Structure formats: C-alpha cells, structure tokens
C-alpha cells in the first residue's frame, strides 16, 4: 500500500514542490531503511542524478557506538529532496554534510529528524546553500533528545548565499529536548562572502570576480574536507557551481 500523498500542511513538506513530486510519488513513498549495527561505521556519498526530480527518503538506525557520515549534494534542476530520519542509540555518532546548489526555478531541500534515544550520542549537521535566480534551498532539521538521552551533543550549522534577489533560503532548525544534561547548538546565516577573505585573495592577485568565485567554491567545498573519498562529490559540486554562478 502506498503512503498517502503529502500536503503542504505537514510541516516537513511545507516548502516542497508537490506538483513536481506527484507524478513520481509512488517510487519514493516508502523510505529506505539503513541500519548500522553496534560499533559499526558507515560513510556514504550521495551524488546528484540526472533526473529533474530526485528524492531520497532514508531511515537510518544507529546502534550503540555506531558511526555514520553522509555527504550529500542536492542540485536537482526541478525538485530535489533529501530526507533523513535518524535514530541514535547510546554513544552513536551521526554527521551530515550537505549542499543545496540551485538556479532557475528549482527547489532543493534537506529535511532531517535526528532522534537521540540513548545517552552520550553526538550529531553534527552542516548544510550550505548557493542559490541563484528563483531557486529555493531549504533546511528543516529537528533534533529530538529523548528522556534519558543525557550528555547528548547536537549541532546544526546552516548557511546560505543568495546570488540573486529572487532566490530564497529557508532554514528551520528545531530542538525538542526531554533530558536536562545536553548540549545542543544551532547557527544559521544568510549572507555575504567574508570581506577579509576577499581582500586576502585580491591582495594575492585575483580580480574581484575570480576571488568571489573561488570563495564561493570554498563555501561549499569545505563540506567534503573530511570525506575519505571526496573526488566525485567535489567534481559534481564544482560542476553544479559552474552552472549556477
């Protein structure tokens, strides 16, 4: 049985392009489940595909002491959605490094629900968006800390660069905490390139346009700095930036 088609009234679908999703909904209705057993590790690189609409819906269950790192590039020409529902058992670690790179009238979004069930878990979510023309890039991220999940350490860092007045960045970090000894940080910004970095690059000989292009590349590329095998996602992100900037 196929799950019912979502509506905009559901918070997690608020910014979605439901018109684009409708014709292909059946193939994405059921999330994929990934399980990482106690003490095991998983590292995945999610590259964009050629389709106009690209949706990934993943349930990720991390056992005690398990580690998972996801590197994801979201750059669909119409609608891209990366949805992660993560549960962390005791001392599990989850890291997500994701980029939305969009132009035209595209919508690309990360929607996450990270549930700390056991104590001592750690989650890091770092999202960067580069948006031009009428593109929309969103991050809706909820971190839940269950009763008893003490010493949870959760962090969300979300930044966006808008290259055109018509582009939109939505950012909604959310915390739901039922334990009293936890550390949960979130930061979000939509803005400009760093003036001192621009001056540094110019003082070394780059003209203003080249300096900006390079720094914009760095703004996204820093996401892959810690990946074991980053060549493909680096190249895909570079190509997406060339298309968008």
């Amino acid at each position, binding site marked *: 049985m196929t799950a019912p088609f979502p509506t905009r009234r559901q918070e997690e679908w608020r910014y979605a392009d439901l018109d684009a999703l409708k014709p292909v909904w059946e193939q994405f209705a059921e999330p994929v489940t990934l399980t990482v057993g106690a003490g095991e590790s998983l590292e995945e690189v999610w590259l964009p595909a050629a389709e106009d609409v690209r949706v990934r819906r993943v349930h990720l269950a991390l056992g005690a002491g398990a580690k998972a790192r996801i590197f994801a590039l979201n750059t669909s020409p119409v609608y891209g959605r990366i949805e992660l529902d993560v549960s962390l058992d005791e001392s599990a670690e989850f890291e997500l490094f994701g980029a939305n790179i969009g132009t035209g009238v595209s919508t690309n979004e990360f929607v996450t629900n990270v549930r700390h069930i056991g104590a001592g878990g750690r989650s890091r979510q770092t999202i960067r968006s580069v948006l031009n023309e009428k593109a929309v890039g969103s991050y809706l991220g909820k971190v839940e800390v269950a009763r008893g999940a003490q010493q949870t350490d959760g962090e969300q860092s979300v930044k966006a660069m808008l290259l055109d007045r018509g582009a939109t960045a939505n950012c909604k970090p959310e915390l739901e905490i039922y334990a009293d000894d936890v550390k949960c940080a979130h930061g979000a910004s939509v803005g400009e390139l760093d003036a001192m970095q621009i001056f540094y690059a110019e003082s070394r000989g780059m003209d203003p346009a080249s300096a900006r292009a*390079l*720094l914009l590349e760095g703004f996204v590329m820093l996401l892959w700095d810690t990946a074991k095998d980053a060549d493909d996602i680096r190249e895909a992100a570079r190509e997406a930036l060339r298309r968008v900037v």
Partner: protein
Amino acid sequence: MLDITNLHATVADKPILTGVSLHVPAGEVHAIMGPNGAGKSTLGYVLAGRPGYEVSDGSVSFLGHDLLGMEPHERAAAGLFLGFQYPVEIPGISYLQFLRESLNSQRRARGEPDLSGGEFIKLAREQAGLLGMDAEMLKRPVNVGFSGGEKKRAEMVQMGIMQPKFAVLDETDSGLDIDALRIVGEGINRIMRGAGKGVLLITHYERLLEHVRPDRVHVLQAGKITRSGDIELARDLEREGYAEAAA
C-alpha cells in the same frame, strides 16, 4: 622604488596616518618600528589597498605608477606583496589551488602564460622546502588548523612563489620561535634581496633585524615618522623603549 609622500589615512573616519613620508630606493630594506596603535599595520593595509582604509591626502608612487589609483589585484600584479600580520583562513580551498589561481591571475595581468599544474606544483614544493615547510601542508585548506608560526612561514612560501618586486611584511616575526625566525629571515634575504627589489619590514622587535639587516630604520609614532636612522636606532629602541628613545 616606493615613494610615500605626506600620506594621510582614516579608518572608520578616525585619522590613523597623519602625514607619512618615506622613500625606499630599489635594493634596500627599510624597517618600520613603533608602539602599538602607531599606525604600522594601517600603513601596510593602505599600501595593499584594503577596503575601508581611506586615503584622505598624500600620494604613493610605486615604480613610477600611482599606487593608490590601482585595485588590490593590480597592485599584486605590479609586484607588490603584503605579508599579513594575521593570515586569513579559507576553509574548503587548498593552498595549492589558492596560490596557483593567484599566481596565474598575476601572470595573465602581466601578459605572461599560465603555469601548468605540474610546473606550479614543482615551484610550490621547491619554495616550501626552502622555508622548511612540509609540502604536504599545501594540500590543506588555506591556513586552516595552522599554528601562528606555520601561518607566517606559509606567508613567506607565498612570497617565494610570487617573487614580488616589493614586499611589505607586517609583523612577520610575531609568533615565530627562534629557529623559525632565523629560517624566515634567511627566506626574506633570499627572496627579496637584490637589485630592483625592496622591502618594508614592519616589526615590534629588533630580533628579526639581526637576520634581515635593514638599510634604514624608521620610527612610526601617532601616525607619523618621528625618527629615522640605521640599525643602531633599532638597538636603542630595544634597550630604552619608544618613550625614552623619542625624547
């Protein structure tokens, strides 16, 4: 080579430089010393063209060109290099990529052909080696995770790669231990000593000047050059302090 005449500059409407005049002929190294807040770093930034550092009066001629009329990247292509007091971190961009892009931008502006990837890596490795820096560090993002001393050494590697005609080095000695200070001093001599080259060495301490012997030493106080002399002036300052030596 570098002629600064009656330079006045403000930062956020506050006057910082209040009439600096300085002449550095080709082939010479001049040192600028002075207390905190005297305007030393401001002078470096004004020469390199940092936005927000407004020149309200005076002129600077560099190799016969009006330096202040040029954009920062044009100054670099003309052969000016600023060694930053606080080198800037750029996550996501490797040092190799940053420097290759910089050097080739300068070369294009001068009508020279780009260096190929292979040629550039050879040059970068060679310069890193000469300054005792592990070339593997150049694969890391620009200055990210570098110690204070490593950042300063990396600035000198950049200078070796760029081969500028004139270098303004803003407290390149701060954050260096004794061995690193000697290596950096030797690097400055190797890269910047010679006919047709010049250096303005901004420093608080006389130590670096024992490695890089300046031809002239100037004291900058409250936005003006108040004294000039030879290395003996730097030694006097080290002994007596600025307040005493100015008297």
